[in-house]
């Protein structure tokens, strides 16, 4: 006991001394810091100035395309820091809580298209109105309208859009005795996703061993719905998902796929789906522009020159984001300037060249150049042409607050049960209904 008392005392003394010492050292350090700061401020001016932070999810391609470095070179007083959260389902709740707390937000926050309506309807007062800062006519109309509030406030600038095409395996199509020319193929299914599904029945008659026509029924559903004006909500913001013609049409097309053995029954963005690309287990996939890089990466060299791209049955959009400046931003002026610059046509074209994210500004379309590797990979398909044709004709879609969870309920419960568990379409619809009710239940 005695010894412990003594050691604890010794320990205490040591702790106090240590604390004091670190305090002193810290004091020195801060002195040092401020000294050098002053030095650099007067000198090179390289460091210091304002740090503008930008919060994103996934891969935005700004860093990859070298845009931050370029901007910092143009504006020596500005340092850009990107805070990336990989998963959208983690990023958005976090951003919502920070916006409402009015602290902890980045100077620029990215908003996914699935969340933009929620942001417009519930967070509009937390974002700077960018409508006065930019020439709105640069963007596609339907892109702008997604980020505009009822009283005309623009809370986010469009980054990329997700115009849709069909990526298909030329080699598999040939073996199945189908048309392989991309223009003729597009003509065969033009205007109706059911025609695309019908072609799948033909494919399955002579399908190469172990392959299916399409990766999943949900992908057909999403692609078809991406071209419909009417989705889950009407103009007044009431839920009409179970009456909507758009949903019905897309659902029926997906059910055709799910019940006719033409699907590889994979779930998009899961590991087995990636493997499906590598092993060539499905012949087509509805591909928004941003998916090209993904397909290329996951297929690897084995898919080179075998993939081709044809126009989708209808002009449809899937994905795309916005960047907005929260009112809580500490460097609003700099953030607005940076957001404007990042979303300007010239910069969007640079991101496309690197990352294949398709610009939301039509004036960029004239000089879009995809990477040479991408073009060879997709059999020299005129990618820019196909995607810009689609982008320009996409209808203005009505979104609602809970678009995202309703969509997930339909694809990941309804469609998946039919596709993977052999339930009837009616049972699948009932399951989806139950799920949507759970989502909408306050």
């Amino acid at each position, binding site marked *: 006991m005695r010894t412990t008392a003594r050691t604890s005392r010794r320990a205490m003394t040591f702790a106090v001394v240590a604390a004091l010492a670190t305090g002193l050292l810290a004091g020195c350090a801060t002195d040092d810091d401020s000294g050098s700061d002053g030095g650099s401020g007067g000198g090179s001016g390289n460091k210091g100035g304002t740090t503008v932070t930008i919060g994103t999810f996934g891969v935005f391609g700004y860093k990859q395309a070298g845009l931050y470095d370029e901007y910092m070179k143009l504006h020596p007083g500005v340092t850009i820091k990107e805070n990336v959260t990989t998963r959208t389902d983690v990023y958005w709740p976090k951003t919502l809580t920070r916006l409402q707390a009015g602290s902890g937000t980045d100077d620029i926050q990215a908003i996914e298209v699935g969340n933009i309506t929620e942001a417009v309807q519930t967070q509009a007062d937390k974002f700077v109105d960018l409508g006065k800062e930019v020439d709105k006519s640069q963007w596609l109309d339907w892109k702008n309208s997604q980020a505009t509030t009822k009283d005309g406030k623009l809370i986010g600038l469009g980054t990329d859009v997700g115009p849709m095409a069909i990526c298909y395996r030329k080699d598999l199509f040939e073996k199945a005795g189908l048309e392989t020319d991309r223009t003729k193929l597009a003509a065969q299914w033009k205007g109706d996703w059911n025609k695309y599904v019908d072609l799948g029945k033909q494919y399955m008659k002579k399908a190469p061993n172990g392959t299916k026509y399409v990766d999943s029924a949900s992908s057909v559903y999403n692609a078809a719905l991406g071209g419909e004006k009417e989705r889950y909500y009407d103009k007044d913001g009431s839920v009409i998902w179970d009456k909507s013609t758009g949903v019905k049409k897309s659902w029926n097309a997906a059910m055709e796929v799910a019940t006719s053995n033409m699907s590889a029954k994979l779930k998009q963005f899961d590991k*087995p789906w990636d493997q499906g690309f590598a092993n060539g287990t499905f012949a087509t996939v509805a591909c928004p522009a941003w998916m090209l890089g993904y397909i290329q990466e996951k297929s690897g060299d084995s898919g080179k020159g075998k993939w081709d791209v044809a126009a989708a049955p209808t002009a449809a959009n899937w994905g795309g984001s916005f960047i907005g400046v929260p009112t809580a931003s500490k460097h609003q002026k700099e953030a607005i300037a940076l957001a404007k610059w990042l979303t300007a046509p010239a910069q969007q074209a640079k991101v496309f060249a690197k990352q294949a994210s398709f610009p939301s500004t039509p004036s960029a379309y004239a000089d879009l150049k995809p990477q040479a590797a991408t073009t060879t990979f997709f059999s020299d398909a005129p990618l820019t042409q196909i995607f810009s044709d689609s982008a320009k004709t996409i209808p203005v879609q009505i979104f609602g607050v809970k678009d995202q969870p309703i969509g997930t309920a339909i694809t990941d419960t309804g469609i998946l049960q039919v596709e*993977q568990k052999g339930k009837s379409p009616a049972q699948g619809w009932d399951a989806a209904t139950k799920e949507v009710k759970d989502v909408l*239940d306050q």
Partner: protein
Amino acid sequence: MTSSDEALAQSATSADTAPGSQEPGAARGAQGRGTAPTGAGTWRSRLYRWDMKASPYAFISPFFVIFGAFSLVPLLYTAWYSLHHVQLSNLDGQTWAGLDNYTNLFQSDFFWNALKNTFTIGVLSTVPQLVAAIWLAHMLNYRLRGSTVWRVIMLTPYATSVAAATLVFVLLFSPDTGMINWALDLIGIDPVNWRESDWGSQAAVSSIVIWRWTGYNALIYLAAMQAIPADLYESAALDGANRWQQFRHVTIPMLRPTILFTVVVSTIGATQLFGEPLLFGGVSGTKGGSEHQYQTLGLYMYDQGWIVGNLGKASAIAWSMFLILLIVAAVNLLITRRLRKSQ
């Protein structure tokens, strides 16, 4: 919650024993220090006594301050939220709901389904895991070459991250290209859809849990086994008991408190199961499969709170989980008492 509960329990027990052991020690300490002031009422002695009494509280206070700030306050706040309609996108616009969230919850099939899944996955993972751990520990308790190496290897699954482990298991269990279906095919069993079938998916999730935690529990058992006096085994051997009988009649009874401890810890872990099913489900993992076949309570809470944005209901789930844990703890206490009496 659990870690702090345990800590609370631990600090409670140590508080029970503390006064008994501290008083005489303190007295001795005072005597031992020849220079210590003996005259009562002097300033130094008062300071000294105050120091003896107050310092322990100062030393343990950081835990309670942090516990209060990061556990107690959120706990109470969650209770408050659970009585309101709150949307994630509108935190300030909450309206009083009374017990609506709870009644909705208890009428919801999804809640009972999640509760059932939590239970079945818990049993499916805990029972084989503890049995395997005891067996492993028993094996390791024999004289082995390179026993340290074996022990370290056993602990590696526990050291890998949930994410890494689950990713590998997802590939193994992939219905079309996975190794497990391939192996089943070799012995003539039809492939199982490990993602979408009810028992298949639950077994797959459980296997991840088993893989990760078996070694950890085995080490705990091993430590306890090594504390069993060797003469017990010797006398058992003299009585003619074989290895299995020794295991049954010596090892298991001596391990009883340890087994109880691991059961409690595993049960709490199983009740809060979250990471494995979430990552196993992939992109929309919070749903736990198309029919919610492996959605646990933890997943359902996360789905309601952060995906759907219905914070009120999510808080109600959180509190229901808390109450369930309390019930589990109470049942466990009863069993412990029973066992103690029977000893």
